């Protein structure tokens, strides 16, 4: 049996398949299907300093081989996470990554300060790429200088590996990657959703109440793979690849493109067993192809290999 263990800048995981933030709540809903310790790690629903109600509904639209969401970071606030969700998840044996968000540098500072006191947290993922909130959100992720500032601010309080989650809605994702790497990001995760839209022919209006939303699912896989492949050639940080992964085959493509681990988002919504099936499928494929470890296939599709 091939070894699925990975170590991303100190974040050591039993397997490299994580649950992507926002598609897995705080893990409770999936307990009906399999233990919370099964995913390599759980990236919890995006947190803000204060509880957030999110956007009006409809928040979900379907698109060809994908979906749009405009949840708008509905969450109980970082304190509730620290008090309730994190201890619960840890008691289940889960590896837990907090996904943090802010409308200002001060927000990011405050939320990371509060998280620095939390016990058991395995990593922090900074979402500088949420397309579904008006101020902040994606804004920070589309400018290298701002992205660097957020990284710096969070890094100050961060006692665990620091993951910066990149936005695909940029001209040059490698510029953002370099900027956050320079300020101490330990790991990069990509991609967040592409900004998209659906229109209802019957009502003649946008389907989503917020009009635009984040596109995810298999439709975006080619863009995600390209960005992982580009960033892997640019910075020397481990990458968590995501965007359209719904099968072990998809996941393997991300490893070949240079990812050190992957995350499953929309796939959890359409198939609650998506993560265990991918873990099993990767393991089987590695055995079949004669690889000893998942790390052996990392980056094989990069130039020079």
């Amino acid at each position: 049996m091939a070894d699925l263990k990975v170590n991303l800048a100190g974040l050591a995981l039993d397997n490299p398949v994580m649950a992507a933030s926002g598609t897995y709540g705080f893990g409770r809903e999936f307990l009906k299907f399999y233990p919370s310790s099964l995913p390599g790690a759980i990236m919890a629903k995006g947190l803000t300093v204060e509880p957030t109600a999110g956007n009006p509904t409809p928040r979900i639209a379907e698109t060809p081989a994908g979906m749009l969401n405009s949840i708008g970071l509905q969450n109980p606030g970082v304190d509730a996470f620290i008090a309730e969700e994190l201890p619960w998840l840890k008691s289940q044996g889960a590896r837990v990554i907090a996904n943090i968000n802010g409308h200002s540098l001060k927000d990011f500072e405050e939320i990371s300060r509060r998280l620095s006191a939390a016990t058991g947290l395995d990593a922090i993922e900074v979402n500088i790429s949420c397309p579904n909130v008006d101020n902040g959100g994606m804004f920070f992720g589309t400018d290298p200088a701002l992205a660097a500032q957020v990284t710096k601010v969070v890094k100050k309080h961060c006692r665990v590996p620091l993951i910066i989650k990149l936005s695909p809605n940029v001209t040059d994702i490698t510029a953002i990657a370099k900027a956050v790497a320079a300020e101490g990001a330990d790991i990069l995760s990509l991609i967040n959703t592409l900004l998209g839209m659906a229109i209802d022919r019957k009502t003649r209006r946008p389907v989503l109440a917020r009009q635009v939303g984040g596109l995810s699912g298999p439709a975006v896989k080619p863009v995600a793979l390209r960005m992982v492949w580009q960033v892997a050639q640019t910075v020397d940080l481990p990458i968590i690849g995501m965007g359209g992964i719904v099968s072990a085959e998809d996941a393997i493509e991300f490893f070949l493109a240079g990812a050190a681990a992957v995350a499953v988002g929309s796939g959890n919504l359409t198939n609650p067993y998506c993560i265990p099936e991918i873990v099993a499928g990767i393991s089987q494929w590695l055995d079949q192809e004669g690889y000893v470890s998942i790390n052996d296939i990392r980056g094989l599709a990069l130039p020079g290999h």
Partner: protein
Amino acid sequence: MNHDSSTVNHSRQQAEGSLVKKALLTRNQEIAKGIYEMELVEPDLAAAARPGQFVMLSISKGLEPFLRRPFGIAGIEPQKGSIRLIYQLAGRGTKQMAAWEAGRPVELLGPLGNGFAWENGPGRAVLAGGGMGIAPLLPLAKALRSLNKEVTVFLGARSLDLVFGIKELGQAGCQVQLATEDGSAGAAGFVTLPLEAYLQKNAGSSAGNSSSAQLQGLYACGPTPFLKAVSGLCDRYSITAQLSLEERMGCGLGACMGCTVQIKDSAGKIKQQRVCYEGPVFKAEEVVFHG
């Protein structure tokens, strides 16, 4: 849903085993214009399902369409090991479903959500369904009738050719009042008109009521404007009501926060609740309607 509880009880009926089920399609036929009924055999599902719960159907094994589709459970027959769904052609998912033939295995998640609640023993209940909202009221009507309650069902539809369920409700011993917007059958206009007339007569103390049993509550399902109107009536005539809501869903499991509605508790505090998880059935007085 606990049949013994005397109030709406949001404790989840925990499904036995996995929520992912493979059911056998045994019937799939048009029962009204563009409206189909599907019978699915899966004994665990039939045993666990409660009126008001729903399932998420997987339309294809591939990526098209990408998301599962939610449908209320429109019939529960544990003895036959089957449930029924009634669905209207809406887009590509339902169009594909209409072409399915008996003998096909259908993958679904369910039963999901919390169903309707009722008091045990006899009494009197009013059900109000608008359009496809009639579907999830059918098993509820039967469950209430099996407790020997008097059940009056108000059915609203755009026109007669879109009406279904009348015969089934009649056979179960329900009083049925039909209204069609185009007047092609029953009362002409919105069904909320005859409903209001009924509530006027029957609400409040049981004294002076046209029926002897006490009116225990109202159950409604249908489009949001309809539910809002019903909710207003219940408020006016001081009747407790349970509404089954709809929202566009991502997961149906409570994980994505796609289907959130505003629910206010008795203190007036607003909470975000998931139609798929805390709902789809909510107390009328708790639902915050927008717009």
